[in-house]
């Protein structure tokens, strides 16, 4: 294919950026050649966005050099970067919805005659740019009338208008279906042939391998390395992103004794072909009483989306959910709650804690919601529940009247657990319950989950940390690219590299 010319169009060396208390980037080197698609990989918080923002001038750098097209540059902002030929298309399309396609493509570059905009010529020019990307849409149509995928392509056309030498695509495929992705990739290939350097950020391994000529991996703000896809098996890529050599991952293998779950009776919850378009493809899943089902997969693999369908936070558009032997429609969270399902979201701050309310009010909220506004939870009962869980979970400070928003992350997580446990659920869905909390609290929560299951509660457990999933789960469902690709019964034979392998291969080799 294209042979990279010897000199890179973008050369970043020794880039460091520190935010208060955090070293966001630590001496990162990165280079980008004309006519290549270069994938930037890493888990959340690895520094991918920070690196992009350093390049486009959104963040100033503390040290290092940025050379673009042979000239050392310090861009004052995205506009300056764009003027120098570096364009960015963000995940959330940053176009103007209520303008026409032509206006969006040509914004600021309208064809002018005698100082006035010549709209006919402008539309014609827009059409040319759109056609260059095989995009056959009416330039006069309103942008908002098109799908997100087309909008994304329009955004790329716009980048072409400003004659971008470097095109940064930040998670362009996260909201597209497979046909749309194929279309986007056609466009990317066309651009590559024209010598445009493309920086591509995605969580989808398949896509990265399908389109990239080179991969750079970041972890915790530091460079792990630059690789050729052909020389980097997926398993190794995942290992490099997660940050543990495979051998180390294996050593951390869970050592707790395994309880065999009785799967002969009726499952507590049975999902048959449940799915939601653009969110997760139809999947089957059974959860038995007393069973912990772990969901493993990379960020964006559809773990959260699956969990939300099980609770009713989003409603499924295909399939059937059977709870306790009865087919049910989970249209909204109340539906899940009334069937004794509880869901603790991964976004503690935005979807969990009611910050300005007290610990007490937060704990009682689920119970209260179940009863409706008219039947207030009696004070005596509320007191009992609250003090029981504050003690049982070790919430600190042990003050029911403390404002929940002021608690530490771990304690907020415990308050949320208390909220759900107070509703006496039969199925508890925990999405990243241990993220961002200290080691002690993490161990406590893990132990609690194991104990609850031992008492007969079913748990769906989601965590980005594979060893945690392996240690707790009786069964593991593996997800990739918004699909459930495998399901396996946990045993001593199941190790992190088995799971990593499944994630990397997409279940075909298992």
């Amino acid at each position, binding site marked *: 294919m294209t042979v990279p010319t010897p000199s890179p169009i973008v050369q970043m060396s020794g880039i460091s950026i520190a935010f208060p208390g955090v070293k966001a980037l630590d001496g990162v080197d990165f280079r980008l050649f004309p006519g290549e698609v270069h994938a930037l990989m890493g888990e959340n918080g690895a520094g991918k966005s920070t690196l992009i923002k350093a390049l486009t001038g959104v963040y100033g750098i503390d040290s290092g050099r940025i050379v673009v097209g042979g000239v050392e540059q310090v861009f004052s902002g995205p506009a300056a970067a764009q003027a120098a030929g570096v364009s960015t298309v963000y995940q959330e399309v940053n176009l103007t919805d209520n303008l026409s396609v032509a206006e969006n493509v040509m914004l600021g570059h309208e064809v002018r005659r005698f100082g006035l905009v010549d709209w006919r010529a402008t539309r014609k020019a827009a059409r040319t740019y759109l056609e260059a990307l095989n995009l056959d849409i009416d330039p006069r149509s309103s942008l908002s009338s098109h799908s997100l995928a087309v909008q994304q392509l329009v955004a790329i056309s716009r980048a072409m208008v400003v004659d971008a030498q470097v095109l940064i695509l930040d998670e362009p495929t996260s909201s597209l279906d497979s046909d749309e992705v194929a279309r986007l990739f056609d466009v990317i290939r066309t651009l590559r042939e024209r010598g445009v350097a493309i920086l591509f950020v995605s969580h989808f391994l398949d896509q990265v391998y399908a389109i990239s000529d080179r991969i750079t991996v970041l972890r915790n703000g530091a460079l792990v390395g630059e690789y050729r896809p052909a020389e980097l098996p997926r398993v190794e890529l995942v290992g490099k992103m997660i940050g543990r050599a495979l051998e180390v991952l294996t050593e951390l293998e869970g050592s707790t004794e395994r309880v065999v779950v009785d799967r002969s009776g009726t499952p507590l919850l049975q999902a048959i072909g449940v799915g939601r378009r653009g969110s997760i493809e139809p999947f089957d899943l059974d959860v038995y009483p007393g069973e912990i089902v772990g969901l493993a997969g990379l960020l964006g693999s559809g773990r959260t989306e699956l969990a939300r369908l099980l609770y009713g936070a989003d409603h499924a558009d295909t399939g059937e959910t059977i709870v306790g032997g009865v087919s049910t429609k989970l249209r909204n969270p109340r539906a899940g709650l009334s069937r004794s399902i509880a869901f603790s979201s991964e976004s503690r701050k935005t979807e969990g804690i009611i910050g300005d309310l007290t610990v007490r009010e937060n704990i009682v*909220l689920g119970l209260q919601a179940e009863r409706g506004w008219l039947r207030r939870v009696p004070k005596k009962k509320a007191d009992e529940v609250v003090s029981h869980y504050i003690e049982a979970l070790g919430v600190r400070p042990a003050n029911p009247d403390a404002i929940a928003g002021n608690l530490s992350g771990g304690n907020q997580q415990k308050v949320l657990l208390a909220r759900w446990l107070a509703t006496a659920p039969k199925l508890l869905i925990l999405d990243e319950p241990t993220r961002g909390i200290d080691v002690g609290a993490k161990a406590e929560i893990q132990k609690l989950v194991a104990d609850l299951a031992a008492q007969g509660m079913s748990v769906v457990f989601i965590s980005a940390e594979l060893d945690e999933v392996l240690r707790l789960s009786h069964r593991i469902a593996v997800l990739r690219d918004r699909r459930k690709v495998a399901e396996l019964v946990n045993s001593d034979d199941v190790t992190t590299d088995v799971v990593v392998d499944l994630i990397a291969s997409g279940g075909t080799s298992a």
Partner: protein
Amino acid sequence: MTGLAQLTRHRLFWPIVALVVLLLASTLKSHTFLEITVRDGHLYGAPIDIVRRSSITLLVALGMTLVIATRGIDLSVGAVMAIAGAVTLTQIASSPDPGAISTVALAMLTGLAVCLAIGVFNGFLVAVLGIQPIIATLVIMTAGRGIAMLITGGQITTVTSAPYKTLASGYWLGLPVAALIAGFFFAAVAFVTRRTALGVLIESVGINPTASRLAGVRARTIIWTVYVLCALFACIAGFLQSSNIMAADSNNAGLFIELDAILAVVIGGTSLAGGKFSLTGTLVGVLVLTTLTLSITVLGIPVNAVSLFKALVVIVVCLLQSPVVQHKLRARRRQAAPVPVEVPA
């Protein structure tokens, strides 16, 4: 010292200070200002006037407090008042027996039904269609007076009806009926929000709608309910207002009352960002505004300076309440701490 510091930190401290200052200034100007006498078998005096006058704004602000607690706003209250007056008085005026209690009761029920429908409409736009509250309620705010004008045929409909007049001008046990009505609803809302779980659920929806929904709270129903309640209270305020002048003045009934109500809610310490609300705070806010209006007349503020005077009082109260200013004041007080007994002006 610490007791005083804690007192000044209370969110209602400055509004209450403003209230006291206004009352004192008015009393200095007119020595009998705070005097309450018995006249024609009922209590009479400026404090009674303030309480009676407050009833209309209090009713509107009561509904507004609940709406604001859910992160919303209801701009349509003034128009709802106009419609309530127009519907009710037109019906009373056209009946053969305007003085009969049954006529008045039926007309008021009609008014209530119409306002209920408006509340349901507002709530539907906000809770179901997800339209921004400020836009959703703007519809009725702008169209509502036109509807009221249509009902009254563009005239000021005047009626003579003793039972209806009692609402605003009557007395019961020596107290103004209007104040008793507003007081009843205040107590009812306080009871319902604090004795049932409605209050905490409203706050929870206002603070974090997404989290509340995921917690199983019927966020939509709750938001819908507060708009209906707000319209109902505005309707009753409309009854009091039209009874006060015994006329349905579609152009002027409740004009700009939404701003007074919002101001009262904010002075009372409920944040426009939603969440925690204080009904007592709203009551204090309403009393401050009513006293301010009355004291303008009593103090003889020149007509051209009225707006300025009102604005100054409100700005000063809001400034003193602002967390930034409070912080600065506290820092200053701490600096001056070695000096004993520093009496704040």
